[in-house]
């Protein structure tokens, strides 16, 4: 089975970030970490485990700026066989453009895996859109994958809300988005990383691809409006601990202090 995994390099949410001057994206504002989005690393792990069970190849693809090649190197280090970099000047905030760029690469694959959502844009849109664009069946938020022995179908366990699940059968070729949980992304081995450095990364020029009309755009980013008071405790860590205990005692959550 040939499996394509869509991976996105993100500016980690726990990094120091700010809104860009144009308000259309988030930019570094200090120490930042760039890494593979959490669910995409799970998707790659799922693909590698499938390969171990039934054989085949695992290809990874990303649409992103030059530095996104690092994410592909790491994926190769984890064990992917091939990598494709669709080079874009910046991050692309429109899921249709991302899906349309990936669609030609997906065409040659039996199974396409994506993350249930990206950690930065959090849309959960690229996978389903890619499926619909390429006329393939789609399952989302998968927590288990079971291929049919002849490779013609896939049994997928999808996570719904509050612990409910549904089981669906997809015919191959198909698109599945991966939820976190059963898949703990492996660490690349040292030999894997060394090998990855020598492996070629195929680059595609997006200007050579048909780019669809954008359907939506981001206009402005702001911190979320507070839903609660958010009173910040001040002083040393010890001062804060004393203040907090006092407060919890006042409200009856802790017994009064021993005399």
């Amino acid at each position: 089975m040939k499996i394509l995994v869509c991976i996105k390099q993100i500016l980690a949410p726990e990094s120091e970030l700010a809104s860009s001057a144009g308000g259309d994206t988030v930019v570094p504002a200090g120490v930042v970490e760039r890494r593979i989005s959490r669910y995409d690393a799970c998707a790659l792990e799922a693909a590698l485990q499938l390969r171990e069970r039934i054989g085949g190849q695992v290809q990874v693809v990303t649409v992103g700026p030059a530095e996104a090649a690092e994410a592909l190197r790491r994926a190769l280090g984890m064990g992917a066989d091939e990598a494709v970099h669709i080079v874009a000047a910046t991050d692309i905030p429109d899921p249709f453009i991302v899906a349309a760029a990936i669609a030609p690469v997906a065409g040659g694959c039996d199974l396409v895996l994506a993350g249930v959502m990206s950690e930065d844009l959090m849309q959960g849109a690229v996978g389903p859109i890619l499926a619909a664009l390429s006329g393939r069946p789609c399952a989302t938020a998968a927590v288990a994958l079971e291929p049919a022995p002849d490779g013609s179908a896939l049994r997928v366990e999808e996570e719904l809300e509050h612990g409910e699940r549904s089981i669906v059968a997809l015919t191959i070729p198909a698109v599945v988005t991966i939820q976190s949980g059963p898949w703990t992304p492996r660490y690349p081995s040292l030999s894997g990383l060394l090998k990855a450095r020598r492996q070629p990364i195929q680059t595609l020029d997006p200007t050579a691809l048909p780019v669809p009309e954008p359907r939506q755009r981001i206009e402005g980013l702001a911190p979320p409006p507070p839903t609660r008071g958010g009173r910040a405790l001040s002083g040393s860590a010890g001062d804060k601990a004393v203040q907090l205990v006092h407060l919890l005692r006042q409200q009856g959550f802790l017994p009064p202090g021993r005399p």
Partner: protein
Amino acid sequence: MSVAPICIVLASRDPCRAAAAENLAACARAIATHSPAPIQAVVAGADPSAAAGETARHLGIPVTALEIADLSDPGDGAFGAVLADFLNRKAPAWILMEDTTLGRRLAGELAVRLAAACITGVEAVEGDAAGIVLTRAVWGGKFRAGVRATAATRVVTVASGAFAGRLEHTAVPADVRWAQGRAAHGGRRHLERIQAPEADAGLSEARAIVAAGNGIGEPDRLDLVRALAAKIAGAQVAGSRPVCDRGWLPFSRQVGITGATVAPALYIACGISGASQHLAGMSGAGLVVAINKDPKAAIFHHADIAVVEALETFLPLLIEACGQKED
């Protein structure tokens, strides 16, 4: 020319969940305030009549019962195909669905089939001279983005509870129309549903919850969280999804949209970033205390008391202070 409608889409399998329908209707009304348009709903499924009638009575808007032949579950591939066909004929400006696993998958499919924009997890609606801007969380909730659709049709999933409480009840007699559809499943067949495991009564009844997030870093630090919980009368330990994913706590202890919904009098979030999927499970808590080393963490916008500290230094001090007398 008639104004393109705002169309609410509900699946009929589940009993009419009033809160979900109201949330969608309230979002539709928010859109219509800025850009007037008729609001209608479609309740689709194998046997949508009862749910359609209930929805019409409840929301006071026209409802179409869309009966889909041979459908075992809204999760079957035929659901989206029939729905797209139906909606295409209605030519709506807006299609609103719940922000669920089903809703997000359908949103992508419908957006492609209807050449529409696809905007998921919408939390607020604002209007300006140029039209409507939808607000949604990005970067784990650290920012909210305003998104403007440039396509004439927009498929939107609405974050659960985001618009609740803004519905004015209007008692209008049920106005249900019928439509029928049949489609091939397109390579996706629903096989079965697995019910959620029994909820953990300990969490739902706890007076206080101390919750561990990814920020605890290593499983041994759970001992600090447990030690803190032991000091607080009636406190239970819970976790965010990454903590339960790793098996550091059992799934039954997970708080959030795919876990438990809790409403203790006190919720102490330790190393939790404040993603909406987590907040959805604990926003009904009484007093919320957040401990996080990142002063910009989203959780601080949703906490009553904010402590910017690293857990490994702060929790031991806090546990110690619990046992000390006050000056």
